[in-house]
């Protein structure tokens, strides 16, 4: 996992930190006192896949999507419906999830990313609403508002990957790979291009970057990663229902990314932690959950515009200044 290229600055350190964090996560199942806690770990992986892929689009490329949850749902229903209703292998379902989310993102992104301004945000808002309606109304396929049931668990080489340590390890592998791919991308030609265009589209064009193509590429990529998260979700829970993937869920993901720190590699790690831990901590005030999110978002953005990960580096810098003579 070490960077083969002696790249400067954040990059080499990021690989090392990532390798350490990911190795330590292997110890979590040993430390987890029960299955409930273990399942929170799995939920964190899925949340991290969603926040990480949205952060790639929103934080690094500067494009706002309001339908990340719809792609999450499209991935979940694609693989879920195929395996539950048609007996197709979930592994083929994964291919279908990748293809469908990729194609859908391409069709939405192509026209809306041609225009400057917030057209992607508007187009994705519409897309999420449409998808929510389809998830409910295509009862024959999706089970409608009652949800899609009897989705089979995954199995690999004859071993069922149930909602226990085996799924934890599987999610560890899949999400770890996804985050490694994102890290690689950020330090590559296209990664630099997408970071560049979020700062100045003008300068990106002047440097020969096909802004439309790069935006479209990163939007499709981020949607497909959300599709993989949906695949994990549906085969973990053997169930999917529309409200998991509605517009509010998309907004929640934006909040999670912003809370963690947009455009920072570690932001989604922290954001996902809040995403999983807060509802558990606030179980008593379940109706006020969204209020707590809203208030905490305002507070974080007021005092730490860089999100939680930005707050950490702010504090570190402060500490260094204090310790300096």
């Amino acid at each position, binding site marked *: 996992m070490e960077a083969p290229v002696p790249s400067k600055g954040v990059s080499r350190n990021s690989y090392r930190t990532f390798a350490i964090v990911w190795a330590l996560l292997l110890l979590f199942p040993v430390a987890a006192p029960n299955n409930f806690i273990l399942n929170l770990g799995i939920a964190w992986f899925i949340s991290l896949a969603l926040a990480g892929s949205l952060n790639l689009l929103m934080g690094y490329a500067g494009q706002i999507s309001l339908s990340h949850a719809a792609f999450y749902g499209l991935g979940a229903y694609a693989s879920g419906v195929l395996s539950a209703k048609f007996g197709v292998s979930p592994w083929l379902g994964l291919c279908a999830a990748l293809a469908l989310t990729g194609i859908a993102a391409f069709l939405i992104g192509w026209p809306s990313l041609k225009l400057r301004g917030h057209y992607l945000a508007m187009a994705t808002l519409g897309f999420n609403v449409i998808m929510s309606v389809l998830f409910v109304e295509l009862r024959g396929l999706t089970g409608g508002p009652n949800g899609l049931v009897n989705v089979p668990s995954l199995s690999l080489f004859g071993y069922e990957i149930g909602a226990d340590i085996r799924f934890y390890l599987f999610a560890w592998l899949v999400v770890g790979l996804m985050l490694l791919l994102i890290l*690689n991308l950020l330090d590559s030609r296209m990664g630099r291009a997408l970071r*560049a265009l979020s700062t100045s589209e003008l300068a990106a064009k002047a440097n020969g970057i096909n802004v439309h193509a790069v935006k479209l590429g990163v939007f499709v990529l981020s949607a497909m990663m959300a599709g993989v998260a949906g695949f994990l979700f549906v085969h973990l829970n053997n169930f999917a229902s529309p409200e998991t993937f509605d517009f509010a869920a998309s907004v929640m993901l934006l909040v999670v990314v912003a809370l963690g720190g947009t455009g920072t590699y570690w932001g989604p790690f922290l954001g996902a932690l809040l995403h999983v831990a807060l509802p558990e901590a606030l179980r008593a005030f379940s109706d006020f959950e969204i209020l707590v999110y809203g208030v905490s978002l305002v507070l974080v953005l007021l005092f730490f515009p860089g999100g939680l990960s930005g707050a950490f580096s702010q504090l570190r810098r402060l500490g260094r200044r204090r310790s300096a003579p």
Partner: protein
Amino acid sequence: MSTPAHDGPVMTAPSAKAPLLEARALTRMFAGLAAVQELSFGVTAGAIKAVIGPNGAGKTTLLNLLSGFIEPTAGEIRLDDRRIEAMPAHARVRHGMARTFQNLQVFGTMTALENVMVGRHVRGRAGFLSGMFRTPASRRESDSVRAAAEKTLALVGLERRAATPATDLSFGELKLLELARALASEPRLLLLDEPAAGLALAETDRMAGVIRGINASGVTVVLVEHNMRLVMSISHDILVLNFGRRIAEGTAAAIQAEPAVIEAYLGRDDDA
């Protein structure tokens, strides 16, 4: 080609070969007003050509037309005798054209070196997948892009600032960084929008030296500039615009003696 309204002392380029860049009857209207009007001129390969003129003369509009950031209302732009006026800005870079901006457009979240690496975008081929999977080819490419970017930074004297975030650079350094980023694509033609604007005297002279060095390495330069010290010291020939039209074109000495230029800059002296 149409005849310009005022015929300045047009100096023919030293060599007779076709110009690297040519504008033919280039016109750009903004809401009925012509920012650039029936403008024709050529830029000889290897030259440093300055475009000057009073505020609002259409200099920046011209640069935006040449680099593809706005489309002409009429007329042609030719690069190597090939029409490019309909080509998108990013594609022109691939054909050997690079530009800088008057109001700096550096990538603030990236280091100086990364900025220059972005400038080398068109020299690379790695796409999303090869970048994500770090294929051997993309790794080799990344290495060579980094090495070339380091050299380009050294060319403008910023090699010691490579790892510095662009936001931490001084204004003068940012100007040089933008120049290095434009150079990284190995352009044949470099369009500079006021490279000396906001620079102190010593920095202006440093910038002049850098531009001269770039030109000596074979890059043709077109610069829009207000700073006459820079213009007069480095340009081979000068195009003077007023109200979007050419009023003079020629060497520094020739245009300084041209009454139309003096009038445009100082106004008509009716008592003379």
